[in-house]
């Protein structure tokens, strides 16, 4: 074992790892599950995306340019926002801006709070710390925001009669949408709350696993994981709240009437 505790994987072993996927593919063929194409594309993407990431990160860690770090963070945020919108099929138009804002505000604030205040990296843009932590923060907020928005709009549609009846009594759009807002935020935060409850008992969180595999002291790795987990949960919560509060109003007309399916063409 090398001195730094990391056992390097050779290129041959990397190819060998695909053996299990090939076996799964054969199984899929035998059982006619229709998964071969998806498995193949997914495997190729995993190889290409992660190896490309390795190359890019190696370069960024070497040059240590603040604007390269910021550019990467912006790119990650934009891609995450696009993924959010794809997962919300009946979303009203104009959701990109508000979702991007929610992702950016929480992603950047929480990432730099962790690196600057908790870890106290020497330079604020220290790529070795900033990029992986931003990745975890953005990835989790993305899931939370996508789940919340999806639930928000499906819940409003499912309860459109209740919404109409409430508006008819003089409610504002916020008062009429409050029930849907509440249940959407709960839905968005369930994965985060679950993972906080199960961490360390059911599974070792990814970051801690990585540090332990890299030879770090498990207790030190645990401390890091606690910080990151709490920060990621906060980012997911705040990001979902911002996204939902900015989004619900788009389902109502300027007069505050709910836009049911048949009415959406008029207002958008």
């Amino acid at each position, binding site marked *: 074992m090398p001195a730094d505790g990391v056992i390097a994987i050779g290129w041959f072993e990397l190819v060998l790892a695909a053996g299990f996927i090939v076996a799964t593919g054969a199984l899929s063929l035998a059982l006619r599950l229709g998964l071969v194409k998806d498995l193949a594309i997914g495997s190729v993407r995993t190889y290409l995306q992660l190896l490309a990431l390795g190359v890019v990160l190696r370069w960024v860690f070497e040059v240590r340019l603040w604007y390269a770090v910021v550019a990467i963070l912006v790119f990650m945020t934009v891609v995450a926002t696009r993924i959010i919108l794809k997962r919300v099929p009946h979303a009203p138009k104009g959701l990109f801006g508000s979702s991007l804002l929610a992702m950016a505000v929480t992603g950047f604030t929480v990432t730099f709070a962790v690196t600057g205040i908790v870890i106290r990296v020497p330079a604020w843009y220290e790529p070795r710390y900033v990029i992986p932590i931003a990745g975890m923060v953005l990835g989790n907020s993305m899931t939370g925001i996508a789940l919340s928005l999806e639930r928000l709009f499906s819940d409003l549609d499912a309860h459109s009669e209740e919404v109409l*009846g409430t508006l*008819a*009594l*003089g409610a*504002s759009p916020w008062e009429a949408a409050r029930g849907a807002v509440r249940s959407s935020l709960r839905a968005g935060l369930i994965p985060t709350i679950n993972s906080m409850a199960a961490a360390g008992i059911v599974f070792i969180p990814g970051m801690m696993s990585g540090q332990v595999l890299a030879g770090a002291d498990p207790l030190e790795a645990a401390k890091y994981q606690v910080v990151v987990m709490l920060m990621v949960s906060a980012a997911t919560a705040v990001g979902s709240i911002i996204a939902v509060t900015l989004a619900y109003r788009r389902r109502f007309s300027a*007069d505050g*009437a709910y836009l049911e399916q048949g009415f959406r063409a008029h207002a958008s």
Partner: protein
Amino acid sequence: MELGAPVLEARDLVFEREVDGRVVRVLDHVSLAIRPGDIIELRGESGAGKTTLLRALARLLPGVCGELVLDGRPDREVDPRLWRTRVTLLPQRAALLPGSVEENLGFPFTLAVRKHTDPPSAEKFRAGMDALGLDDVALSRDVTQLSVGQAARVALLRVLLARPAVLLLDEPDASLDDASAARLGEATARFAAEGGALVRVSHLRADATATRSLRLAAGQLMEVSNAG
């Protein structure tokens, strides 16, 4: 009956909707003046646009063109929430909110738009329930424990207690038996006698208390008879 100043006026309402790929004019220059004490019966075939017209009057119909005037003020000058406290629609399938009967009856008074209005007392709730034939229903009962007809009457009482100037009822008796429908007719007649105005879509029963009867067909509103 002497004609007073209208409380609510609709002028030249036009509303188009795409149905099966072609544009249908559901409201074709519909005008209507509603006066205090009016009980207007709105008739027409299913799909003629009766519900659409009620929603337009409550300013809950996105995309409608034309002018609405409430107490002499055009709609653009009146906050839509305030408008809907004066012109209140009771949708056909009025959904009650999760909770007890009492919570539902008090709900309109929890809204910001009525923050300076005191909610009616529990005695008032009780008297209203009794008048609608709901004397065997406790105020504490959860709304999931109500029958369809009971829930419809609780929803009606909720809008009556909120005291709008114009009440728009979309087939309020659809799920009621004859005795309950008669109670509903009495309650709405009382509302009109106290100076409220009423527009009521009815399918099942002719309204004996109606002062006017209108018919909506092919986007046009026609006077059928004038009992007032």
